[in-house]
């Protein structure tokens, strides 16, 4: 089943990579909106997000991106979060291709807005969790991203990407790792901001 899903996801990208001219160039503006899933690395927990970003190609193979991950919930968590939204800004490098495929790697520092879910009333907690107020916290993050776009038409594209996020949630209890692998795929829109753009 997993192989089938992978084939379905990647087949359209491979089958339509037939052009011999690069699509992306300086002046392309794109945006993405989708759902994303994250697997935390320090403990068993899966986070769910609504994510979106805006990206501008400041050179033929360099883009600047700003994005948000709005937290929806955690499942299977030993320390479940009630808040875990993040935002990132950074640069992306797009190796040259001769078609509408656009692989990329990115480096994005960011910040997180996090809060652990307080235990239910009546549950027994040990020190220091029993005296914690479970406050909200804002913390810095580091991240790297790799993915691929397929610019299907002049105005839309498909994408799939993976992101590794590193950080810690600090509050009044021992810090909780925020490190996780995230995956997102879906489609986005794109427009040209330069009329006579030159593809390379």
């Amino acid at each position, binding site marked *: 089943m997993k192989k089938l899903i992978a084939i379905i996801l990647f087949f359209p990208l491979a089958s339509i990579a037939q052009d011999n001219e690069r699509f992306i160039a300086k002046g392309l503006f794109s945006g993405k909106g989708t759902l994303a899933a994250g697997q935390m690395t320090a403990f068993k927990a899966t986070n769910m997000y609504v994510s979106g970003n805006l990206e501008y190609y*400041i*050179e033929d*193979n*360099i883009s*600047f991106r700003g994005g948000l991950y709005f937290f929806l919930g955690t499942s299977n968590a030993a320390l479940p979060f009630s808040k875990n939204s993040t935002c990132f*800004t*950074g*640069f992306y*490098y797009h190796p040259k291709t001769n078609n509408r495929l656009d692989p990329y790697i990115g*480096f*994005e*520092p*960011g*910040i997180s807005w996090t809060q652990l879910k307080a235990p239910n009333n009546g549950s027994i907690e040990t*020190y*220091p969790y029993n*005296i*914690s107020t479970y406050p909200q916290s804002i*913390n*810095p*993050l*580091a991240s790297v991203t790799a993915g691929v776009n397929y610019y299907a038409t002049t105005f839309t594209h498909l994408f799939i990407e993976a992101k590794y996020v*590193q*950080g*810690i949630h*600090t509050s*009044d*209890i*021992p*810090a909780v790792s925020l490190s996780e692998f995230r995956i997102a795929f879906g489609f986005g829109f794109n427009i040209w901001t330069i009329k006579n753009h030159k593809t390379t």
Partner: protein
Amino acid sequence: MDKKNLTILFLLFTSFTYGQSTGINTRKGEISFGVRTTESLFRSSGNYFGIGAGWQVRYRMAEKLNTEWFADWITTDIGGVGQRYDSHIGESMIIYPGKKMGQKNTFTPFVLGGFCGDYTKIQANPIIDEELNSNLKKSKDRWSFATQLGFGTHYNFTERFDISFTSQYVLHFGSDIDAQVRTNDIGEKYLQIEKEKGSNLEGHIFITISANFVIADLCKK
């Protein structure tokens, strides 16, 4: 070598490296914007790594002389019993000793040194004080100035975009906050924080990865 001698050596070395010939000014006037991630290791609060994020702007004064203006924010977990928050804002001079400058797909090594202002807050997780029958939550903060020296390299993906790797030693001059992990009578670990009167030196290692893009060239011919 004690800390004072080390400081004098840093300052003299920085002054010496500023005095190098600047060569042909082909990249003079470039302004770049960058984002950065930092890892910091403070010895005085125990050997715990902090993770940070920040931004920076570079202004290239000459072909072999660049300046970097940065702001960082770092959080560190101190052994599960407290947290350390550091904010830096400062400036570094970057000297390029090599001959190749910013050519595509090449490394450009550099040495750098400078100064920064720093705000530090160390906060202990609450502990139960049985005599007062309450939870104690301690924190101390301070402002300090620092000087830094290090080395690194740019990797130039294009002539306008680079990823930079930097390692620096930062020496802070300011009031001393002593934070030590202790164990109480019933075996619980806690963070003891004391703010000493007078000034002290505190050093830390500072590793930075940044991505930078040239957004303007003031000396464009």
